């Protein structure tokens, strides 16, 4: 249990996918303009990541390891992720066309979100058990959502702020992202102090 909690906290905050591994930067910068779309994107990524890690774990351990086909892991993982994203897209389109409009091109782009493939590959290289993988995927997605939400909140405030023209838009967003990453580095002392 402690092991699972450790994985959860460390993936959520300390080894955050976006701000520590710098994976999934594209949607992080692209969809963090508005809080509503950030929440939607976060939920979609969390869903895909959790399912992708669990299904990938099953396929990896039950099929790939058994038949000695480890070299296929990249292809299979991408296949799993792409299908899941298609599925999520269909669901969102059916049940929330507003969110579908807001997410736009970034929804199909979850397919190439390296955070998700990263999660699947990390799970393999760290030899996680099935339960650990699920928790890992879930907390990874949650960490992504958290960062996205924080960023969206900050950016919405910055919209109204009076900033020098040179910094307006992308430069300020990148600086904000950098500062956020620095802040999250502070979490790395979390466990030694306990």
């Amino acid at each position: 249990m402690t092991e699972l909690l450790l994985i959860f906290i460390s993936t959520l905050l300390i080894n955050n996918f976006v701000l520590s591994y710098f994976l999934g930067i594209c949607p992080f910068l692209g969809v963090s303009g508005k809080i509503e779309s950030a929440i939607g994107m976060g939920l979609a990524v969390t869903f895909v990541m959790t399912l992708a890690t669990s299904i990938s774990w099953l396929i990896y351990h039950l099929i790939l390891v058994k038949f000695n086909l480890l070299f296929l892991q990249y292809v299979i993982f991408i296949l799993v992720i792409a299908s899941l994203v298609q599925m999520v897209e269909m669901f969102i389109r059916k049940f929330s066309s507003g969110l579908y409009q807001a997410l736009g091109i970034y929804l199909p782009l979850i397919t190439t979100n390296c955070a998700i493939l990263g999660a699947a590959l990390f799970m393999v290289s760290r030899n996680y058990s099935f339960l650990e993988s699920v928790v890992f995927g879930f907390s990874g997605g949650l960490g992504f959502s958290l960062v996205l939400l924080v960023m969206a909140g900050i950016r919405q405030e910055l919209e109204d702020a009076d900033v020098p023209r040179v910094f307006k838009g992308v430069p300020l967003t990148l600086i904000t992202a950098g500062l956020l990453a620095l802040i999250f580095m502070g979490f790395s002392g979390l466990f030694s102090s306990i």
Partner: protein
Amino acid sequence: MITTAIITLGVAGFIFSLTLALLSKRLKVEEDPRALKVIEILPGLNCGACGFSGCRAFAEAVVREGQIFNGCLPGGDELNQQISAVIGVTACLQSKSQVVVCRCGAEASEKKVATDYQGLLTCRAAQITGGALDCLYGCLAFGDCLKVCPVSALSLENKKIRVDFSKCIACGKCIQACPRNLFELVPWSKVNDLYWVACNNTEKALKVKKVCSRGCISCTICAKVSESPYYIKNNLSYLDYTKLSSETPLEAAKTKCPTKCIFSAKNPKGA
């Protein structure tokens, strides 16, 4: 080994595609066939001149609201009539009433450049670093606006922007792209040819003279022609488009301008 690999991938792919196929049947979203029809006849430029994010969004809004809003600018009256026929309303049509003009009319020989600019060859970069042009208001001529124009109405001739008024759809993308805000949407009336002041330099005459031989020196000659629609503000001549009538002495003011920075074009689109 190869066989197992092929079989594994094949089976996995088959299972996934089967799931997706079943799901896509179950989760099919009914699309309004009229919207599809509208999308089909739209030009597909995604220019955004209609006020929506693209042709698709426009078509969906048209069908949903049952009105065509301001219509499709590039499509013109004919296309808007077709669209309104599809959704079954008679549209109140407005013909294209605006075009964009560039407020810098200086050619390469007229603009002075004291330094050798070595930076990035985009207007936006040159605007930040400076040095590409002595005039702080004039066209930098790297063509940022050319790249965003969805209908290729802009061209660069001798470092001067030329607008093809018959192509311009007044979508305003160039206005946002120009770091020096040189583009201006102007109305074209049915009675006059199109006139505009091709200078944006608000410095005093002496400073303007130093950087450009074409610039407006705010001599007020254009404003002094009787019943002139021109007026001087911030050391720069402006044309009041609300005052135009068929008798407005536009041409008289243009010929009197000592630096020849008032430009004109034949009535665009020949209406």
